[in-house]
């Protein structure tokens, strides 16, 4: 009796070992979907929740949310190239609704947007090629992580300091003047001046071109729209009025990330439409609520929250780089292309 029981155990042992627990198994079966490009079975609820949360924040802060989405996707086991490519597609969707909402409120400086976009496309093409090379050398993951730590760390710190000071000033009752009319910085000395009516600016086209190119480059390597770079750059370097900044950056992001999505598909086969759709549907819903909530928040408080979030993500990524990994080895199935 006992021995025959044990014998039949032999067959079932493996099963109980692999599927952590029975009740968990049913939920997994109901809520999972196979991602054709990422080649993994994913939990729909997890990715829906992720999309919703990131969408809310992107609507709230007027950023693409890619700088949160890509790391979250990588943490949850999506290959980093798919996370970057799919992240770009998701930002297209989340930004398009945001950009249209902003456009209706007349918050987009089209001329400025086009200059940023021209730069962005150049940056994106260069970025995607660099990703391709880095993947062949095996340093892509490191490069993504380092880029995130660097940019998020710097931007987060700057924003945190600035927003804290602004909150203090607001509490103290001091009137904050965004832009002093007679104030000039080095940017005003550059050639190729253009007049940007909506932003009430007369500045060289070079800085927006450079900013656009840089952001396009980041879009390609980080799967982020780059709003977290572009918004501060436009506010502090170009002195674009804050109400125009968000709409204009969204305008540029839509087109740059669309181009990046296509490039990642042709160069790296890194776009998973199924995953993108899950993130889009949930992200768009979240973004609408975020945008509504954002219009009721004060600018400096928004910036403080965003800064805290940015620093948190930065810290989380650097953690993995510094702490001794359990497994020193890693394997990747591709040599050259996937």
């Amino acid at each position, binding site marked *: 009796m006992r021995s025959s029981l044990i014998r039949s*155990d032999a067959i079932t042992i493996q099963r109980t070992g692999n599927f952590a627990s029975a009740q968990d198994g049913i939920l997994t079966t109901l809520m999972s979907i*196979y991602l054709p490009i990422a080649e993994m079975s994913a939990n729909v609820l997890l990715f829906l929740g992720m999309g919703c*949360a990131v969408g809310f924040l992107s609507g709230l802060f007027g950023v693409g949310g890619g700088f*949160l989405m890509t790391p979250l996707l990588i943490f949850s086991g999506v290959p980093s190239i798919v996370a970057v490519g799919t992240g770009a597609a998701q930002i297209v969707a989340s930004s398009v609704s945001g950009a249209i909402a902003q456009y209706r409120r007349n918050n987009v400086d089209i001329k400025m947007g086009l200059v940023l976009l021209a730069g962005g496309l150049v940056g994106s093409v260069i970025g995607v090629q660099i990703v391709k090379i880095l993947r062949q050398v095996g340093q892509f993951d490191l490069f993504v992580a380092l880029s995130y730590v660097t940019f998020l760390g710097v931007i987060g710190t700057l924003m945190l300091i600035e927003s804290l000071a602004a909150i203090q000033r607001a509490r103290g009752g001091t009137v904050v003047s965004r832009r002093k009319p007679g104030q000039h910085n080095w940017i005003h000395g550059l050639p190729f001046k253009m007049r940007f009516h909506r932003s009430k600016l007369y500045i060289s086209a070079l800085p927006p071109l450079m900013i656009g190119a840089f952001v396009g480059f980041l879009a390609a390597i980080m799967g982020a729209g780059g709003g977290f770079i572009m918004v501060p750059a436009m506010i502090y370097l170009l002195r674009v009025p804050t109400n125009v900044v968000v709409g204009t950056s969204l305008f540029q992001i839509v087109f740059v990330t669309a181009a990046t999505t296509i490039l990642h598909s042709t160069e790296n086969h890194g776009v998973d439409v199924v995953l993108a759709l899950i993130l889009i549907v949930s992200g768009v819903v979240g973004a609408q609520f975020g945008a509504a909530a954002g219009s009721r928040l004060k600018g400096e408080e928004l910036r403080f929250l965003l800064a805290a979030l940015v620093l948190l993500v930065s810290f989380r990524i650097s953690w993995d780089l510094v702490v001794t990994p359990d497994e020193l080895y890693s394997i990747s199935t*591709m040599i050259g292309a996937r």
Partner: protein
Amino acid sequence: MEHLIPIRLCTLILAPMLVFLIGAAGFGPLSAPKAAAQATAQEKKQEKRKQKKDRRPQPAAPASAEPPQAATPKPPPSEPAPATAAGLSAPLPREKVEADVSTRSIAVTSGFTGTEIIVFGTVDNSRQPSAEAGYYDIVVVVEGGAAPLIARRKSNVAGLWINTASAAFTSVPSYYAITSTRPLEEIADPAILEQNAIGLENVRLTPAAGAADELTAAELKDYRAAVVRIKEEEDLFLRDDYGVAFIGRSLFRSSVELPPNVPVGPLTAHVYLFREGELLSTFTTSVKLEREGIELVLYHFAMNYPLLYGIFAVVVAVGAGLLASTGFRRMPR
């Protein structure tokens, strides 16, 4: 005062994210139950191994005999039955193994969460008195298609863990599951196992021409071990020492787990029949593992027409974004 509500909303969103971020940092509350389950499975196996040993009619003493025979790939036809039974000189018909798989073709659709296949078969001309006799040993290997792979090693450079060295392999099985009637080391000599690529340590990993020259033997060995270890962690290399069971004198069966992340492609099932360390017969059959339905369409679309696929992805994204924005147009601001 009015803006307090969105702040509360923000913390509501931020809090679970924080938990996720910390949770993912590897303090592993998620992985704990699985580890526990594996540990108990391990214990059960060990217990079982002991029981089985006690039950065996002849202790493994003669099994390790005749090591020089190991070199021949197929058992020599001249001496069909080494005399374990009472010196029967009359030539008994040779044992042969035949097998099949429960599912010849597995569809990977959007609902694919892994599956299980049953490999079953019979030993022709079985001389086994009963299912429990332990006269024969069966090893079942299910293998995925071989693919090139790069293994990389991290080392600490200025405080950061960075990939600093690598080894390329031209062919590594994408999936390798092995089950047997008892642990492999009890079944046959390492040499025979190695020759037939039986066992996780004997999986055929062909280093690339360059890698073999650049790396020392020890380094290459470390890389091999790492590949096997990582594949094991991903559930792509599986081992079950007691996964094959005889049901009758000649009928046996085993179940093989295909995890959700099993690479899509044809699988080959090899069945090996051993007796006392001697490989008597082998049998090979195959399983098709194919994408089907929308998964297949999308995959082909992405791989063969990447430009169109990229444009398609953008159109889908823009469409979804616009649809939602019109849907929410009347939402109060």
